[in-house]
């Protein structure tokens, strides 16, 4: 079989599997978030936590819960890392330094999972499984909760209530993420992913010494992909054979990365009572994703870079068992969602391939975006699109039966400004410092791309990296930590305020003048608005890095 046929069949099987679970999983999640009954284990969680699951929260209260929970999580995760020497299975490792623990705690709580640490040489098993992996679940559940709250904002009429954060958080974790992660983890173990609680050292065949690194890897790997987290158990992330041993586990991981963001568009349609709306949103994501995959695959398979030309193929930083096709597919899946796991070195991708995955993140993590974050991200862009359309024809814009007025547009404008401001200002400050040149792993334009990629990844909560850059200085730990924290929480607060303002409104009746938002015309309009917004914002920065490199 040729590489091309194998690659195309891989993509076809992936799309077929996603299509197969789209309706049942999407509708299941809609039921999870609309059900009025609690499971026994959920009642126990509420009782032990002292929360009242029957209480409805308005926007402000819901947002306060998200922020309170996130801040507590950061503090607890910092304490776990710094005090890991006192925990069992610490592998005799010392406590994590303060700013690295801050960066890592923020990174996992915000669903970014940027790695300024090297797992195998920094963290004990307890810190990984009882610290980091717990946030893998909870940060993903927070993302879905916020998306669901926004959907309720569209669904509900003349009510300020958006649901109950603690209930949404608990249900997402227990009814969606935990059972799926458990099954996925077992499949990964079957494929060879490690799940043990000790390391061992042995002499190799040629007489060297090698450590057989153990750890609760499979349990963490499963939720790392499913929850769009992406923080590796090991430094090399999903390129490491113990995280991703075969082409089959690689395929499973790509499926896990995409399954929830894709199925959530069905959840959106079902909860809105307009399944075609869910499909329209998926269509926008699908168009952008397909273009991105085509370009990246072309660049990697065609070896379109000087180094790849000399070598004969773009295999620097890639694993033999995956090859170019499966690496390109993984790279597009992981950057289009907010996952950020990598099965190859993105730094060593061709200039066009690396530039495309960078643009994937700049689109605002909506192709198809992070778990939950993709839904609220694209709904915000949809509001922007109806606003632009409204300006064109001189009508008050509306979306899904809700009027979009100055108040909503204020939230939307602030939302769309937050991430670009963090990326561009952060990159600008970093580049203006002389010491940043020493932190770059590559000279010239590619070094600039490394810095731009770092801030784009952090502010968009992706977590992948052009890994050549050294980010262990206090400056980068703090700056990227703040970019992740603000890039996550500020948009969430704005989305919840937006949701609250929508829920307070009544429904506007559909008339002949209403712009249908579930038809191909609007899909095209939304794609256009997303591309124009991203292009206007980032083109100058891209021109200095990846575009300049690609033209060499």
């Amino acid at each position: 079989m040729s590489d091309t046929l194998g690659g195309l069949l891989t993509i076809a099987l992936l799309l077929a599997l996603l299509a197969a679970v789209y309706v049942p999983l999407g509708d299941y999640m809609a039921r999870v978030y609309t059900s009025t009954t609690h499971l026994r284990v959920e009642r126990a969680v509420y009782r032990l936590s002292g929360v009242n699951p029957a209480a409805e929260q308005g926007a402000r209260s819901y947002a306060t819960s998200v922020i309170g929970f996130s801040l507590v999580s950061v503090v607890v995760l910092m304490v776990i890392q710094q005090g890991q020497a006192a925990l069992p299975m610490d592998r005799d490792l010392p406590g994590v330094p303060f700013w690295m623990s801050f960066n890592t705690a923020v990174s996992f709580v915000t669903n970014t999972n940027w790695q300024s640490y090297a797992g195998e040489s920094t963290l004990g098993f307890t810190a990984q499984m009882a610290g980091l992996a717990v946030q893998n679940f909870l940060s993903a559940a927070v993302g879905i909760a916020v998306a669901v709250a926004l959907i309720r904002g569209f669904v509900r009429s003349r009510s300020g209530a958006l649901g109950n954060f603690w209930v949404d958080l608990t249900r997402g974790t227990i009814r969606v993420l935990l059972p799926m992660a458990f099954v996925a983890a077992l499949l990964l173990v079957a494929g060879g992913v490690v799940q043990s609680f000790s390391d061992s050292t042995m002499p190799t065949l040629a007489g060297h010494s090698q450590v057989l690194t153990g750890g609760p890897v499979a349990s963490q790997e499963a939720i790392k992909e499913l929850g769009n987290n992406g923080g590796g158990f090991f430094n090399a992330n999903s390129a490491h054979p113990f995280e991703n041993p075969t082409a089959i586990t690689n395929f499973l991981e790509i499926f896990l990365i995409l399954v929830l963001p894709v199925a959530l568009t069905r959840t959106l349609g079902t909860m809105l009572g307009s399944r075609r709306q869910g499909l329209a949103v998926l269509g926008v994501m699908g168009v952008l994703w397909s273009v991105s995959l085509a370009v990246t695959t072309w660049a990697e398979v065609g070896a379109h870079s000087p180094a790849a030309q000399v070598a004969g193929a773009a295999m620097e930083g890639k694993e033999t068992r995956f090859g170019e096709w499966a690496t390109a597919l993984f790279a597009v899946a992981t950057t289009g969602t907010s996952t950020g796991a990598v099965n190859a070195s993105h730094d060593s991708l061709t200039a066009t391939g690396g530039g495309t995955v960078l643009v994937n993140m700049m689109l605002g993590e909506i192709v198809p975006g992070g778990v939950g974050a993709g839904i609220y991200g694209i709904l915000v862009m949809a509001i922007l699109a109806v606003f632009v359309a409204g300006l064109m024809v001189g009508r008050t814009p509306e979306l899904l039966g809700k009027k979009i007025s100055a108040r909503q547009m204020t939230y939307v404008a602030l939302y769309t400004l937050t991430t670009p401001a963090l990326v561009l200002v952060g990159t600008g400050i970093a580049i203006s410092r002389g010491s940043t040149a020493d932190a770059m792993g590559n000279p010239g334009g590619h070094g600039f791309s490394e810095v731009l990629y770092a801030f784009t990844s952090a502010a968009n909560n992706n977590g992948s990296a052009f890994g050549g850059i050294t980010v262990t200085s206090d400056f980068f730990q703090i700056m990227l930590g703040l970019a992740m924290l603000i890039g996550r929480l500020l948009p969430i607060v704005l989305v919840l305020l937006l949701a609250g303002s929508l829920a307070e409104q009544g429904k506007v009746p559909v008339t002949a003048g209403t712009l249908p938002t579930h038809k191909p015309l609007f899909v095209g309009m939304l794609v256009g608005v997303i591309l124009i917004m991203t292009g206007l914002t980032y083109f100058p920065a891209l021109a200095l890095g990846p575009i300049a490199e690609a033209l060499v």
Partner: protein
Amino acid sequence: MFSSLLTDLVRQSLAGLRLLLVMTVLLGVGYPTAVWAAGQAFGDHADGSPVRLDGEVVGSRLLGQQFEGDEWFLPRPSANDYDTLASAPSNLGPLSTDLIASIRERKAVVAAREGVEESEVPADAVTASGSGLDPHISLAYAELQARRVAAANGLSVDAVERLIEENTQGRGLGFLGEPGVNVLELNLAVAAAGGD
């Protein structure tokens, strides 16, 4: 208003702390332990797929190892010399002059070692992998090394090529990923055959 917001934040944070502790027990201890227990059903997969020689573990079939010398099949270049405590790629960029110089140098070394033209050296022989622990080489790179390894071990080239074939892993399910030759398993087979 600000003080009421602050009071609310503190109250919610405390609820969040209690929920986090409950979830830590469930997700941070219960879940990985359950995966570990159920994972025992898959034999030594959960323990890193160890490979044994005369009963002693000499590595994992999933992890590449460092080999030097004509009697061995050599693995791909590694950015970390196959150190499992520092898995990493080179992270050198697509235009990197350092990378291009390394690739040219490796090409010359491999071509001289195997007695072939530089144009016959496959890409995986001159590029470092994503993990630095790639257990495989391409079929082309294995075949390139067959003559040298056969001579050094007193084996026929045919015998060594048969061993390559036996230790080649095809594409997953017939079409996923790329085929590759497992270097550690191949070298074990060569050592066993050479020892006869």
